[in-house]
């Protein structure tokens, strides 16, 4: 019967973790010892079975929900302490041009709206968390997301339990 130390060396040989000297010694053992050969074959067969044998598992919730929680946490962390990956504004260079153009557009819009005084103002319900959702309790927070596929708007309420 081979020792446990040799059993582990057989395994290490299979995994390519031995030096060339040690590998040679194990090969010699395999040539003369049937018990060692059987064990080596069992280990090799198991390794072969496991190779590419991992079950494919899919995320059990929608991508939108999953991403919304990640995004929220990133934003929370960024507010707490700007990360070393603090994003540089992608579009900084064109803001200089957009700002005056935007001001002109806003002025034009104001004029048009003022002229349309016979029409009642339409309530603005843009999806803006700042006024659309309120979570007053300290021990809770919430975030909102929308699933177009399910035609559903969700507000998820997190209670912070220790």
């Amino acid at each position, binding site marked *: 019967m081979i020792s446990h130390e040799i059993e*582990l060396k057989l395994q290490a040989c299979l995994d390519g973790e031995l030096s060339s000297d040690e590998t040679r010694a194990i090969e010699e053992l395999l040539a003369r010892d049937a018990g060692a050969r059987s064990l080596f*074959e069992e280990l090799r067969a*198991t390794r072969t079975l*496991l190779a590419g044998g*991992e079950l494919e598992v899919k995320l059990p919730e929608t991508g939108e929900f999953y991403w919304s929680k990640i995004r929220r946490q*990133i934003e929370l*962390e960024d507010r707490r302490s700007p990360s070393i990956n603090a994003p540089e504004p992608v579009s900084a260079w064109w803001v200089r041009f957009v700002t005056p153009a935007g001001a002109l557009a806003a002025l034009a819009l104001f004029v048009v709206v003022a002229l349309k005084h016979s029409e009642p103002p339409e309530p603005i319900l843009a999806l803006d968390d700042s006024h659309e959702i309120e979570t007053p309790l300290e021990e809770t927070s919430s975030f909102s997301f929308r699933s177009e596929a399910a035609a559903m708007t969700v507000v998820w309420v997190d209670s912070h339990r220790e």
Partner: protein
Amino acid sequence: MSRKLDYPSAEDQALVKAAQKGDMQAYEELVARHRDKIYARAFSMMRNEEEAIDLSQEAWVKAWQRLKQFQGEASFVTWMTRIVINLCLDQLRKQKRLRAESIEQMDEELGGVERQMPIITPNPTERLERNELRQRIDKALGQLSYEHRTVLILHEFEDLEYKEIARRMACSIGTVMSRLFYARRKMAVLLAGLKREELR
């Protein structure tokens, strides 16, 4: 002239570069592409859906924070996998799941258990449907202790060397070798449809 990135068809490298500059949409595309794989790795280690979701999300958040450190030395998904593995290992250590596995661990330390198992000669003519085999492997993995399962996953599925596994699991190379040996022998028994009890 700025080039707008076509996110769905952009390569990971391009998305990473854009995300490193703060492009959240590029990062969202990376998450969409690799979320299943990262979740799957967390699930295989934790064997709990809720924990796997939480830890995989934490991994994505951490990756965003460290994105500038990613220099492309490995593929993005490999780098992400390492992050989630480390988080899972931290969590497993925190949970201190040793009590339920102490008997197995004692056996392992005594070097006794796997030596009682007869050599399993796999039937070369038995061909299992690939998916059926994967199901059986997954079921068998669920029957291992977390330490044995972890070392098997890191070696067989993540192709890490003994030294690297030892570093990540904060144990000696000898312990890695013993655990891997035990895990493989137990898997051989489980996959052959035999239970340990039947062998005593």
